[in-house]
């Protein structure tokens, strides 16, 4: 049980790609930190650097007080659960569990005892003599966890362990994993591209994009105070509506591009192109003539999701992402299911409060004061 620290870690490949670009990250003892990001963002590389399957081009990695980035994988005292579990297909569950101990020349009685303990913990007793091929996905996962546990490692590494499971199983095992981790208190680094997993599992979540750390914080913090446009648009489903605006009156007022509506920011904003974001649940539909409307448009799609609805509105507001043609961009509004739904092609106005807006400068950085010094 230890802390984990990445200090100035870079991983550059031979062709020049920066898979990991200057990572500084610390995990507290017993914490479950989730690495979240789109595919190719470097999260798996970070995991592999910690595991010892790759070595950093620059920087240092610590497990507890030990500097481990120059140690071979086997000496790092970390255990990894692979996306595909990587169970040895030709060995029985018992042999799979015993393998790490066998490699460490643990004497037989010790091996047998540990295997028994872990099997009890994870309810693997009846499966011990079966082969991985005979087990269900959920069972294989437990064996993978068992194999990692058997060594009593200082840290757990998990590479999208839930993505191979079907939806129902995923939810169940997710909570089991969380409970297990809490109970054992092993510092865990968990990689996923699935937001829901990240938000529900992690004590803290670290968002990565293109090798760079975007923001680290509790799921709450990421959601309410995204540090930049990327995090704002990535965390939360459906994504936050990100719009273009510009400053007026020396920053006292914000004019939304496209519709020309004016909003009063809480504090003065810098000049230049700015980004304003509203989450779908922060917007309402109103009459198109409403003077307070942020913009007007036509209803394109109405998605009924049971207790709520998602309304896609093709509006006159300019999206922040210049690559999307404005006749395709939709503003998404989330409404409760009680009100009567709008119909497609209805003209509507978009209403929202200035207090609910997220503001970002031309470089995408949040203009809101940071929650904690240093983020």
């Amino acid at each position: 049980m230890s802390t984990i620290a990445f200090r100035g870690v870079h991983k550059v490949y031979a062709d020049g790609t920066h898979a990991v670009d200057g990572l500084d990250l610390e995990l507290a003892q017993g914490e479950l930190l989730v690495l979240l990001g789109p595919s190719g963002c470097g999260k798996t590389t970070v995991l592999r650097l910690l595991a010892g399957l790759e070595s950093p081009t620059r920087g240092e990695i610590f497990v507890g007080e030990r500097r481990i980035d120059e140690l071979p994988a086997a000496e790092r005292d970390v255990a990894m659960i692979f996306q595909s579990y990587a169970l040895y297909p030709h060995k029985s569950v018992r042999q799979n569990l015993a393998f790490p101990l066998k490699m460490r020349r643990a004497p037989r009685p010790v091996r047998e005892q540990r295997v028994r303990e872990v099997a009890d913990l994870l309810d693997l007793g009846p499966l011990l003599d079966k082969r991985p091929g005979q087990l269900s996905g959920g069972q294989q996962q437990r064996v993978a966890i068992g194999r990692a546990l058997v060594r009593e490692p200082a840290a757990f590494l998990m590479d999208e362990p839930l993505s191979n499971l079907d939806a129902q199983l995923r939810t169940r095992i997710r909570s089991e994993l969380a409970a297990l981790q809490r109970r054992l208190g092993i510092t865990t680094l968990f990689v996923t591209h699935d937001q829901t997993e990240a938000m529900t599992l992690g004590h803290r979540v670290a968002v990565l994009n293109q090798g760079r750390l975007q923001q680290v914080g509790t799921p709450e913090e990421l959601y309410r105070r995204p540090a930049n446009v990327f995090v704002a648009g990535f965390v939360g489903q459906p994504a936050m509506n990100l719009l273009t605006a510009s400053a007026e009156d020396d920053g006292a007022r914000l004019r939304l591009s496209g519709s020309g509506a004016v909003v009063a920011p809480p504090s003065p904003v810098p000049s230049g192109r700015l980004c304003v974001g509203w989450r779908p649940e922060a917007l309402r539909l109103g009459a198109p003539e409403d003077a307070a409307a942020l913009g007007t448009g036509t209803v394109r799609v109405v998605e009924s999701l049971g207790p709520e609805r998602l309304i896609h509105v093709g509006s006159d507001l300019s999206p922040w992402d210049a690559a999307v043609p404005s006749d395709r961009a939709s503003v998404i509004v989330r409404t409760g299911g009680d009100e009567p739904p709008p119909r497609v092609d209805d003209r509507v106005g978009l209403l929202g409060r200035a207090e609910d807006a997220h503001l970002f400068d031309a470089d995408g950085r949040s203009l809101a004061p940071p929650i904690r010094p240093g983020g």
Partner: protein
Amino acid sequence: MSSGRLRARRLLGGLPAVVITAAAVLWLLPIVFILAASLKPDSLVLAEASGWRALWPGRPSLQNYADVLDRTAFGRIFLNSVIINIGIVGGGLVVNSMAGYALARLRFRGRALVLGIVLVLLVVPLEAIAVPLFYQVTVLGGRDTYWAQILPFVANAFSIYLFYSFFLGFPKELEEAARIDGAGPLRTFVEIVVPNSGPAFASVTIVTFLLSWGLYLWPLMITSSTHVRPLPLGIAVFRTLPPLQWGDIMAFAVMMVAPGVLLFLVLQRWFVAGIATVGVKR
């Protein structure tokens, strides 16, 4: 196999299974002839060779087989082939698989060089080097020995290449898991990779076996007595042994291939599957 089923019907249109079976029977005729001749008294073999009787042993007898065992050291010759082949195939599996794995998965200085050597030597057929190899082996005292018929063929560029191609596609995660669990490269290879590489080993075994079982030129050069002489040379020599009795010769032929054929018939599916991966890779 249902996809194959539909495919054939489409490809062949109305070509009935009868035609194919007839073609197969035709293809087998020489074998039937050989078998029949082996069961006839020598005097009748040529006499009846020109009629339908060629394919039919009137009163089958195993006399020829007994004659072969009398006239030659067939048992010894057969044993020689078995020993030589087990040596070549067995030794080859160990040596070539390790090399193929190291080239595919391990990074070491000189890896590119070794791979290059393998690729270059891949193209060198036995016949091109048989003459100097003969003198080399003679100098080392290898004439008329087992080792001279086994050792030169154990390391095989083609086998190495087959293993190399196969291991390139082996699931990396298994090896990485083993690595994290504490296994070194050799341990990983022996405990994790080999037990999960059945198809590769099967293919290489079959291909190597087929090629080495039929070796003729090399034993011809190296051996001089039945002491270590293998079957292909055995039958050629027997052919020149007076008196020339075709019945006996055909019996020799049958005895030398019967075990292999029976083995094939029993293991047909695995056999075919085993060779299958050879051509599709490359």
